[in-house]
């Protein structure tokens, strides 16, 4: 940036692409830096959101892909409230994130996922869903009936095989894309502090930031919803891991039941709350809750929602001793999981956890976090 002799190639199509990815107000920006200055992140983190927007306006692809600031953004929207141009920097940063994740992905699926319409996404999602329904209600149906006749909910690993395959495939994509993201982001950034210290820096940064944000009502709402989704998914992964490693855990009825119900309820509330808000959105709502936010944002919630519902139904039926219905709910849960893993988890908005972790780690290592 500061070197006068540096040559940088510019791709003039970038700004158009980012605008179609949801950064409608990109060209409004006149570089005053208000967004960076009002952002609660800036005090702790040496990044410039304005510069990320500037790179995007100019189309400096190399710099955009290596920029960690869009990933450090938490979309709280202080910048949008104080933008003198009436632009929405957080919305632009979300669009830049979509652009980055398209470029980090080598398969081209992320590109399609981010550029296609909601209808097209739903169509492909439904096609995959139909396929998995065929597997569970065709191929495995006799097995499910025989399990159900035992009157017990014993999940045999055989049912989990398709999901495990889908999970493994998505992990392969995530790992390879994550590696590419790491390469892009760590370019030109020298490591200044070690691994353990980086983690400590990130942890203290998060604690400070979240405590601060919890003091603001509209931010608290977002943080809680996000935390509910995160905890819900985390608990499901924990349950899955327990089942594989220590299946006896499920003999402790009370604890396991409590864990299962809280997992599905947290996920359901975490996903349901923003969905409801989006449907009832008005002019004044934060852009994140608006009905016409980018379709990728919608899909991230829509694909999670049936999973949360089915998980809840599964155990409600089981507790009502409606074993066959419980098995059907279980099969539906697994059917919804497959397209979720293959599309949303591997290429959609959910990839942000991976890129965020990478960006924070690289930022911490390169000494972007102040105060430590």
């Amino acid at each position, binding site marked *: *940036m500061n070197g006068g002799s540096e040559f940088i190639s510019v791709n003039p199509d970038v700004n158009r692409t980012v605008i179609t990815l949801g950064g409608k107000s990109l060209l409004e920006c*006149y*570089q*005053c*830096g*208000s*967004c*960076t*200055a*009002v*952002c609660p992140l*800036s*005090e702790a983190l*040496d*990044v*410039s959101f*304005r*510069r990320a927007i500037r790179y995007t306006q100019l189309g400096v692809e190399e710099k955009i892909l290596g920029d960690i600031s869009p990933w450090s953004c938490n979309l709280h929207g202080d910048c949008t409230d*104080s933008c*003198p*141009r*009436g632009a929405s920097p957080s919305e632009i940063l979300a669009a830049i994130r979509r652009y980055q994740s398209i470029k980090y992905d080598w398969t081209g699926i992320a590109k399609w996922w981010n550029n296609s319409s909601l209808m097209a996404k739903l169509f492909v999602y439904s096609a995959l869903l139909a396929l998995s329904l065929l597997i569970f209600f065709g191929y495995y149906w006799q097995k499910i009936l025989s399990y159900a006749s035992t009157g017990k909910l014993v999940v045999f690993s055989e049912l989990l095989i398709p999901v495990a395959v889908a999970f493994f495939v998505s992990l392969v994509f995530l790992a390879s894309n994550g590696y590419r993201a790491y390469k892009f982001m760590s370019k030109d950034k020298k490591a200044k502090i070690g691994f353990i210290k980086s983690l400590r820096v990130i942890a203290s940064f998060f604690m400070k930031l979240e405590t601060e944000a919890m003091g603001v009502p509209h931010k608290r709402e977002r943080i809680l919803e996000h935390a509910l989704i995160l905890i819900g998914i985390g608990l499901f992964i924990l349950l899955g891991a327990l089942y594989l490693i220590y299946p006896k855990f499920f003999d402790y009825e009370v604890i396991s039941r409590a864990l299962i119900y809280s997992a599905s309820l947290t996920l359901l509330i975490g996903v349901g709350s923003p969905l409801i808000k989006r449907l009832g959105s008005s002019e004044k709502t934060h852009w994140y809750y608006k009905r016409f936010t980018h379709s990728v944002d919608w899909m991230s919630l829509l694909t999670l929602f049936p999973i949360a519902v089915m998980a809840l139904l599964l155990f409600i039926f089981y507790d009502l001793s409606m074993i066959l219905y419980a098995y059907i709910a279980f099969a539906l849960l697994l059917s919804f999981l497959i397209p979720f893993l293959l599309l949303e988890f591997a290429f959609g908005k959910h990839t942000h956890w991976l890129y965020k972790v990478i960006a924070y780690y690289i930022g911490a290592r390169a000494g972007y976090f102040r105060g430590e």
Partner: protein
Amino acid sequence: MSSVLIIGGGVAGIQAALDLAEQGIEVYLVDKAPSVGGKMAYLDKTFPTLDCALCILAPKMAALLRYPNIKLIMNSEVQDVSGRAGNFKVKILKKPTYVDWSKCNGCAVCTEKCPVKDVPNEYNMGLSNRRAIYIMFPQAVPKRAIIDAEHCMRLNPPPKAKEKAKGPLCGVCQRVCPTKAIDYEQKPEIIELNVASLIIATGMELYDPRNMPELGYGKHQNVYTNLEFERLVSATGPTNGEIVRKSDGKHPKKIAWIQCVGSRDIRFNHYCSAYCCMAATKQAILAKEHLSDVQCTIYYMDIRAFGKGFNEFLERAKKEFGINYIRGKVVRIDEIPETKNLKIIYEDTAESYLKMDEYDMVVLSVAITPNSKLPVPVELTEDGFIKMKDPYLDPVSTSAEGIFVVGAVAGAKDIPDSVTEASAAAARAALIAKRFSCPTEVVK
């Protein structure tokens, strides 16, 4: 020969009046203040030449009195305008001054004897006090005293004192006046005029920076608007030209100017106020001239030095006076409670990260807003300025024939542009005044 009414006695209104009077046309100059001069009379120096503002304005103000065909109607407001080009009927409300101006000779004895001493002085932006009877500023034209009825003991006595006293209170000014000009019984007057043409020269007001609470104006003592700072450096100002902080009376060591306060911001005014870049540069130079060891920094988004000699002025400020320019919009000003110093928060866009700097004094370069709420049948633009008929080929005409507009009420501009427009509008108004001829009369 018929007459022309000019609304607003700022530098543009004065110029138009002089140009018209020179042609023998009868001119009425209305101003809501007790003196002509407008906003320019508040300034210490002008850019880009650093001329003393009043030294170049005062001769023009005084010249108004030399023409018998210029009638000054001060302390008055236009209430109604009807009719059309060649024959406008204008109703003017002349508010009472409680001083018979035909007798007052501006000796100012009353302003020294008046017992009410704590009225904020508008001319010094409230940074100093005046009496209840006052002359607006030493170079005022016409130099006549006026009683501020709201603060006068006689006209608006405090309720407690009113109960105790038997007769009327105070009356000091009446006793001391050598020409017996004080008239407590004066009533508002309606003046009706027939004029051929009108020139609107009502100029601008400063945008209230209290609309941006994050900048702390009005809350933090050492945050000033640029017009307040202008009074502070002026020899006729509250401190006789000494730059001191409101909080502790000490000279500041570091002063920051913050540009685009309320300008170029869709939340407040989307337009560029045009004068502030050069005004801040001028004020920084003045600060340097007053206090040689002061550090001056200007925080800007874009520097617009478009006029003749402006860019050279800017270069001079940087090289000769060592003024710093930092590109970044200041989003917040915090006061440090112990020292009353100010911490400003912004992104330095050259280095691309958040910075916080500490200053002893901060000056806000506030936006201007047009004084366009007038009972005159002309169209306005969306941002409240008076609409020009054709901004390229007919910039001084309005949507109504025979009504012309000059100066900052038509769009943010500086002194030279306002004066240029004033002469142009005077020529256009003269054409109309000469084409029509109608008798004028003053009806009480």
